[in-house]
């Protein structure tokens, strides 16, 4: 995951950008489009159709004007355990031997399986970053609410994104204080205990802040509902975008099945 340095924001979204192209499409349509794209992409099988899906995701990214270097970094940053799993697949899948490394046979079937997973994962993430990652967090929350996601879950979402930055700065202050006392992270028990205290203190401060937040919300008449002020509107162009994307996904799926 992204490492956390002082002075950087915790949630670095792609929301700051020119409000053109893909970024003008209704957020709800973009969310639905991302789901349609993801589910149809993971259902593909042929390499040709996976290539088309990846190219389509790249087109979406270009249309959303995602910054290339940062986007590539996020798409390629996968968990080490997934990398390990993919590397091992050719050696653990029975089938026609392609190469032999240190006495282990790598099968064509396994290599193809691993490649398929990598292509699908990258295509979906790229499309997700382009379609949804370009939304401001609150807009995403409102779009989820308008798509009938339970109200309480949306409130929790909005509350979380509202305070991530506040608590990240709190974390930064605690970390600076530790550094001022000469703390340097090492692989030992002292480091783990100190980081545990740090996280404990962060939790205590967030609990105390939540009490103040609750009091302030009550003062303003909070009874469990959060009026959402937004101006989400779908124009014909938004519906056209969703329809075109769905049609393209269905066409690709059909071509994939017939191949």
């Amino acid at each position, binding site marked *: *995951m*992204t490492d*956390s340095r002082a002075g950087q924001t*915790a949630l670095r979204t*792609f929301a700051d950008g020119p409000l053109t192209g893909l970024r003008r499409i209704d957020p709800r349509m973009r969310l639905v489009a991302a*789901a349609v794209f*993801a*589910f149809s992409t*993971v259902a593909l099988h042929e390499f040709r159709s996976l290539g088309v899906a990846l190219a389509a995701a790249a087109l979406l990214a270009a249309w959303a004007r995602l910054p290339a270097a940062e986007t590539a970094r996020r798409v390629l*940053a996968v*968990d*080490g*355990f*997934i990398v*390990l*799993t993919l590397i091992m*697949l050719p050696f*653990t899948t*029975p089938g026609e031997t392609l190469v032999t490394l240190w006495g282990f046979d790598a099968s064509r079937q396994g290599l193809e*399986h691993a490649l398929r997973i990598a292509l*699908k*994962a990258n295509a*979906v*993430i790229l499309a*997700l*970053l382009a379609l*949804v*990652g370009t939304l401001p967090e609150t807009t995403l929350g409102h779009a989820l609410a308008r798509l009938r996601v*339970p109200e*309480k*879950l949306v*409130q*929790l979402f*909005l509350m*979380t*994104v*509202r*305070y*991530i930055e506040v*608590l*990240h700065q709190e974390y930064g202050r605690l970390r600076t204080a530790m550094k001022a006392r000469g703390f340097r*992270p090492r*692989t030992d028990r002292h480091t783990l*205990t100190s*980081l*545990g*205290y740090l*996280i*404990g*203190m*962060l*939790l*205590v401060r*967030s*609990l105390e*802040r*939540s009490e103040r*937040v*609750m009091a302030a919300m009550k003062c303003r008449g909070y009874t*469990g509902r959060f009026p959402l002020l937004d101006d989400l509107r779908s124009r014909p162009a938004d519906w056209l975008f969703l329809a075109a994307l769905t049609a393209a996904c269905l066409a690709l799926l059909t071509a994939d099945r017939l191949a």
Partner: protein
Amino acid sequence: MHIVDGALAAPVIVAASAAAVGGIALGLRALTPEALPRAGLLSAAFFVASLVQVPVGPSSVHLVLGGLAGLMLGWAAFPALAVALALQAVFFGFGGLTVLGVNLVNIAAPAVLFGLLCRPLVRSAAATPAAVAGVVAGGGAVALTTIMVGLSLALSGEAFIPAAKLVFIAHVPVMMAEALVTGAAVALVRKVKPDAFGLVAAPARA
């Protein structure tokens, strides 16, 4: 421990997504208007804590802190972790979209299980058993998560089984780190704010 899109079989995704929806629903029942700001702030705090890098030998790992989330949030850890995972997928490109339910169940179910099991000890006993309960919850939750991640892969194809075993062994240092960090965090929170554990109760009374 985020599985990516395209690796899992459809039945695994469907079953886990159904379980995820159930878990979120149970968690939301526990979220009364009174409990919402607390859960929201804690959810944000856990998101920030998951950015902390912990050195392990020459490399470093990020903590999941599922056990700690379960101890402090109970069933509400389900929706809180759902929010965190959605944010990580959408803004960091971590994990994926179709596997969101799988990743959620793999992380949140052990969190809630160990959280509820260890909470009585954390709440009532003296300082040392409470810290030990924290160690158990922290280490146990991440161990069970690793097993469930391996199981999700193994159920999707036999070829994944050797990798799943290796992943478990590779995560033993992470389990130890989680255990000790959680133990220390529990000890501190108990000392500084004794009423911190268990305000968001199980949804039984809703």
